[in-house]
């Protein structure tokens, strides 16, 4: 199998699995229990937290473990909204965020908040001027993703951070698609809140983290016991957290080198696709992007049919907007970039990863060329 859907999820790094197994079998105590098994679990948890903090450049007390990137995003948005409700009711985000942010904004709108979704340019980069204009004295939160999951296009979060800081507005960055891919340290982003998710960086599903900078106003969304500095209740998924810590550590270590390798592979892939399949377009190619992601439009054919064609040849890719079941809606991200509905329907995302080798991409180009050619012979448009 050739797996080119690393932005959807990644396989466990073998060292991560190893660390998790030790934990599942030996350190299975409840970190809240007042006996040696519990103490041991608590110490293992403190180590995991310290390891993440060290890898990302923050304090252990600023790491809040969650169950998914989605939960981290929800905690950031609902948490700040809940904490600052009395100060204002306006939230600024972009039109191309992940549904974990956009649908949470929808929910907050139902609760009386006002949300501005700032548009992006044709390359998929948020319009900074328009973002700055949207900030008011009622704005209590700005949320901008670090890189888009469908196109890999990087957003100018450092500049947004400065705009928000100038007005003392809390700033959230959804870094689910960059943590472990880019060698950044948290303070560089300038955000008070940053989400990341284990399963996007060769760590386990069910483990994620929200960085909460000291002093950021936040109200918990899960209440109960006093876990996670009273910001997220629930008995901790220790094996998951240990796996997450190991995964973050490994990913951050390798990020620079692996990034160079993947950029090389990705650029070569795009060059070959462009030369072997007529009329394709690489979405966001002119923008700065994460190294591993390529989003390609094949006019005249349907993305799902391309995916199945590749799948039958043992190649896994996706449309980018993972949809749980049912009809894939044409990507809101591509639509916001000005791509027509039909072209959006004819686009797929190839996201490379640790296991990707040059020969995988050679085969992928060949199968893609054949599949697209075949579908174009069938197509009615």
């Amino acid at each position, binding site marked *: 199998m050739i797996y080119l859907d690393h932005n959807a999820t990644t396989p466990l790094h073998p060292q991560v699995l190893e660390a998790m197994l030790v934990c599942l079998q030996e350190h299975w105590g409840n970190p809240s229990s007042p006996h040696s098994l519990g103490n041991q679990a608590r110490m293992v948890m403190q180590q995991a937290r310290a390891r993440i903090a060290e890898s990302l450049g923050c304090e252990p007390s600023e790491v809040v473990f969650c169950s998914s990137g989605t939960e981290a995003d929800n905690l950031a948005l609902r948490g700040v909204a809940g904490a600052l409700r009395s100060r204002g009711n306006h939230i600024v985000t972009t039109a191309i965020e992940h549904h974990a942010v956009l649908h949470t904004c929808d929910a907050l709108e139902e609760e009386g908040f006002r949300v501005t979704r700032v548009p992006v340019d044709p390359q998929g980069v948020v319009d900074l001027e328009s973002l700055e204009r949207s900030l008011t004295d009622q704005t209590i939160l700005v949320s901008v993703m670090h890189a888009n999951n469908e196109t890999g296009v990087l957003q100018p979060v450092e500049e947004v951070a400065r705009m928000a800081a100038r007005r003392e507005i809390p700033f959230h960055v959804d870094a689910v698609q960059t943590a472990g891919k880019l060698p950044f340290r948290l303070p560089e982003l300038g955000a008070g809140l940053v989400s990341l998710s284990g399963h996007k960086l060769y760590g386990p599903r069910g483990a994620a983290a929200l960085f909460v900078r000291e002093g950021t106003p936040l109200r918990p969304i899960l209440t109960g016991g006093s876990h996670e500095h009273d910001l997220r209740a629930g008995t901790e998924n220790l094996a998951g957290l240990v796996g997450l810590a190991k995964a973050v550590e490994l990913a951050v270590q390798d990020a620079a080198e692996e990034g160079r390798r993947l950029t090389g592979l990705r650029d070569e892939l795009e060059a070959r696709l462009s030369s072997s399949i007529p009329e394709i377009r690489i979405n966001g190619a002119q923008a700065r992007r994460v190294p591993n992601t390529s989003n390609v439009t094949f006019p005249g054919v349907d993305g*799902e049919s391309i995916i199945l064609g590749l799948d039958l040849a043992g190649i896994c890719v996706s449309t980018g907007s993972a949809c749980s079941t049912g009809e894939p809606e044409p990507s809101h991200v591509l639509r916001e970039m000005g791509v027509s509905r039909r072209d959006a329907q004819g686009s797929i995302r190839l996201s490379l990863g640790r296991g990707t080798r040059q020969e995988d991409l050679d085969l992928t180009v060949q199968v893609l060329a054949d599949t697209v050619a075949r579908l174009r012979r069938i197509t*009615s448009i």
Partner: protein
Amino acid sequence: MERETRPEENAGHGPALPYTRALLEHFVNPRNVGELSEEETDGFGLVGDPGCGDQMKLWISVSDDRIERIAFKSFGCPGAIATSSALTTLAEGRTLEEARRITDDDVIELLGGIPEHKRHCSLLGVRALQAALEDRKLRLQQKAIRP
């Protein structure tokens, strides 16, 4: 009921897909792909929204009240392509009356089932055929008016 291949069935036998073997076969080797020339065409159907979503074009050539040739082109998902192909095999050689009575369920049965959320795609083929049959009637009426 959603027809799902159970993972066990697939263990080691290629990809685990929500599609039946029959559907995949029609997707990979669709029958009757193409267009009929203007002269050959006795009926033509176009369904689907050309601005968005799936679309299908279907041509029939009729002789002795039977569909002698049928051809289609389709922009759409695997379900749309496979059901269109399957539909043409069901319609080919049938009398017009028989063709009119082909239902979605006939297509689905031929393919051994289709995932629930793909059912509406299977409408396309049958609807395109109905449209082509209607078109043929119109064409005949028009010929009758100005021969």
